[in-house]
């Protein structure tokens, strides 16, 4: 980051949502409908401030806002700093832009919910935390935001906490995230211990100069620790199990937190610390393996899901895998590119799913949908556009970012895994094909054919359709607009993220682009034919290989595996500590003391008869005894 700092006022970006959260809760308690308006306005104000700053941000500069010194120990000084550089600018635009649309959508989606003041307060609190995360000038501030979004995620997944399964899903997300955070914290502490700072501007030259005593091993260790944190937040194997369960939250939450913004925090962090990761090729190889495995496992699981939100959840996990692939190849700008396009089309897909669920009166099972294109044309078209986008068909935004990811993987410089990259690429392309397949399946099952449910579906009101249209337009044209066709190139804009990786420019014709999107076309086409014309085929295919279909519909038995090796032993240990150690030993000691006193008292009571003569006898007896004892014996 050889850039110059310009001081600017950044804090209002984060301050508006914080104030909004407070006001939405306090005023919303009196009048529920105000909460949505306040929260949406706060988010929109924040977006406007971001636009104002980003508009003014000159090339090769960054804005800085030093608020106060947060920690001051002997050698450790941590400032509470906000920075807006190009990377933060892109993330802020996505967070506040998509966030505002989802706030607007939520005002209609949640309009009947009794607790919507709570909902909007949490949602705005989430925006605040997320902005803290992307604006933070050092890892410590980033970490506050990191934990803040985790908290808000927990609160919003368990928003309908009266349903115990939903509350448990929130808890699961929280606990799994803590595992990742432990790794992240270790990474931060290692950096603090050996480099002495976590400030990005100071860290980058310190790391890149190579003056750190331990060299490559140290970089690898720190990179892996940070990646563990990213795994938790961004739902990668082995810590991805919480994200499908997180669909228990209201659908706008799934769109904002569990698709567009929070789950991409891991990718953002990797991009932010990219200068460290490029020095640790072994760590990047690990990232690639994890990312490819996650993308593949999640994509295959999505094939057999019937809950529309579960399909989208697994698809999100899979797409996050794609982002990490790009990061693993050192092409951090590509990862961010996919973060942005994914935010557009996946938010649109989730909001579309929410619109369908809203229209079908809380029906989530795709087997009870179908034929909705007549009833919900706007939702259908926007969903369809987003499916084409995520499938990576040329022109739509997913194509540009996915193509860039494949391009980055083809130029794999890393000495590790070099001989395997060919096969990995085949697997990645197959996963891209699967993505197109299962997304088209969900589209066909939901919108085409005959309606199979019993509700009376209706199109959603304007606050829900407007965000859908805006996001669909962004999902359609966003990729093209960001890839330089309209004079703005994200690659050029994020040049600071390019750490010596060879930049390649290739202009392709439309025909070549269409050929390049063959995986997507194939997936869309095949799924379309299979689910509209040859409806028996998918069932036959699954019956043909029963173990495979069982494995897939069982979601690879990850939950069962973790249950067997982690959760149940822990529960057993907890039961042991409770029943044996706490109730047996600790309570036993306390109660035993009391029982001892009680028993000896009982014994002593025999002598207390209340008879004066008896006491007198004992008195004289004792006197005589002692006299004899001392003087005679």
């Amino acid at each position, binding site marked *: 980051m050889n850039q110059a700092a310009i001081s600017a006022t950044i804090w209002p970006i984060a301050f508006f949502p914080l104030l909004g959260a407070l006001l939405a809760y306090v005023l919303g308690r009196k009048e529920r409908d105000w909460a949505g308006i306040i929260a949406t306005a706060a988010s929109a104000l924040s977006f406007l401030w971001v636009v104002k700053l980003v508009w003014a941000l000159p090339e090769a500069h960054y804005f800085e806002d030093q608020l106060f010194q947060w920690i001051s120990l002997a050698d450790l000084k941590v400032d509470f700093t906000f920075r807006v550089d190009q990377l933060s600018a892109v993330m802020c635009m996505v967070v506040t832009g998509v966030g505002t649309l989802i706030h607007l959508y939520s005002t209609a989606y949640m309009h009947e919910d009794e607790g919507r003041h709570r909902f909007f307060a949490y949602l705005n609190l989430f925006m605040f935390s997320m902005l803290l995360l992307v604006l933070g000038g050092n890892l410590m501030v980033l970490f506050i935001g990191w934990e803040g979004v985790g908290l808000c995620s927990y609160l919003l997944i368990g928003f309908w906490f009266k349903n115990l399964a939903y509350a448990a899903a929130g808890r699961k997300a929280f606990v799994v995230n803590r595992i990742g955070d432990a790794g992240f914290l270790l990474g931060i502490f290692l950096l603090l211990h050996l480099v002495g700072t976590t400030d990005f501007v100071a860290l980058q030259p310190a790391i890149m100069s190579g003056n750190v005593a331990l060299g490559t091993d140290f970089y690898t260790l720190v990179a892996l620790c940070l990646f563990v944190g990213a795994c938790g937040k961004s739902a990668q194997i082995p810590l991805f199990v919480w994200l499908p369960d997180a669909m228990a939250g209201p659908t706008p939450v799934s769109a904002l937190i569990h698709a567009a913004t929070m789950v991409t925090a891991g990718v953002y962090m990797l991009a932010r610390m990219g200068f460290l990761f490029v020095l640790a090729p072994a760590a990047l190889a690990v990232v690639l393996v994890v990312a490819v495995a996650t993308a593949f496992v999640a994509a295959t699981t999505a094939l057999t899901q019937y809950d529309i939100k579960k399909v989208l959840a697994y698809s999100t996990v899979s797409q996050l895998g794609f982002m990490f692939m790009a990061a693993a190849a050192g092409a951090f700008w590509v990862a961010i590119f996919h973060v942005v396009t994914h935010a557009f089309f996946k938010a649109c897909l989730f909001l579309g799913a929410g619109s369908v669920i809203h229209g079908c009166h809380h029906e989530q099972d795709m087997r009870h949908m179908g034929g909705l294109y007549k009833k919900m044309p706007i939702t259908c078209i926007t969903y369809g556009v987003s499916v084409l986008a995520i499938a990576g068909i040329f022109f739509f935004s997913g194509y540009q970012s996915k193509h860039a990811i494949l391009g980055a993987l083809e130029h794999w410089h890393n000495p590790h895994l070099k001989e395997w990259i060919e096969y990995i690429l085949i697997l990645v392309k197959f996963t891209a094909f699967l993505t197109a397949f299962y997304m088209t399946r969900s589209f066909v099952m939901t919108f085409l054919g005959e309606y199979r449910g019993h509700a009376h579906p209706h199109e959603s009101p304007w606050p829900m359709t407007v965000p859908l249209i805006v996001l669909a337009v962004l999902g359609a044209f966003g990729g093209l607009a960001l890839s330089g066709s309209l004079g703005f190139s994200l690659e050029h804009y994020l040049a600071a993220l390019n750490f010596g990786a060879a930049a390649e420019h290739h202009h392709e014709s439309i025909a070549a682009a269409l050929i390049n999107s063959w995986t997507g076309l194939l997936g869309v086409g095949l799924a379309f034919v299979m689910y509209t014309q040859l409806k028996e085929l998918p069932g036959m295919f699954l019956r043909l290989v029963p173990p495979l279909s069982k494995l897939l519909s069982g979601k690879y038995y990850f939950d069962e595996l973790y249950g067997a090796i982690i959760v149940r032993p822990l529960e057993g240990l907890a039961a042991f500590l409770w029943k044996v150690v706490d109730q047996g030993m600790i309570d036993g000691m306390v109660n035993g003391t009391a029982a001892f006193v009680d028993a000896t008292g009982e014994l002593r*009571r025999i002598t*207390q*008869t*209340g*008879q*004066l*003569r008896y006491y*007198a*006898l004992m008195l004289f007896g004792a006197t005589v005894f002692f006299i004899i004892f001392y003087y005679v014996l």
Partner: protein
Amino acid sequence: MVPITHYLILALLMFSIGVVGVIVRRNAIVVFMCIELMLNSVNLTFVAFSKQWGNLDGQIAVFFVMVVAAAEAAIGLAIILSVFRAGQSIETSDAAELKF
């Protein structure tokens, strides 16, 4: 002159009668009188030793004991009166409620 042994044997007898009375008798006033008997047996030994050694300290001690005995008599009789008022009895075995 009567040898001191005689005084001491008399005091021992009085003391023993007192002890046995306190232990055996139930009437609170009799118990009280037995305590007086014990005090006076001690007084007797004080006076006897005082005469034996030609020393007045013992006789002074007797005065103290008599003063204490007088005070004790006042308080003791008041207690016995209260016990009687409460339970219509001065049997010590009847005043056995103050126990756990």
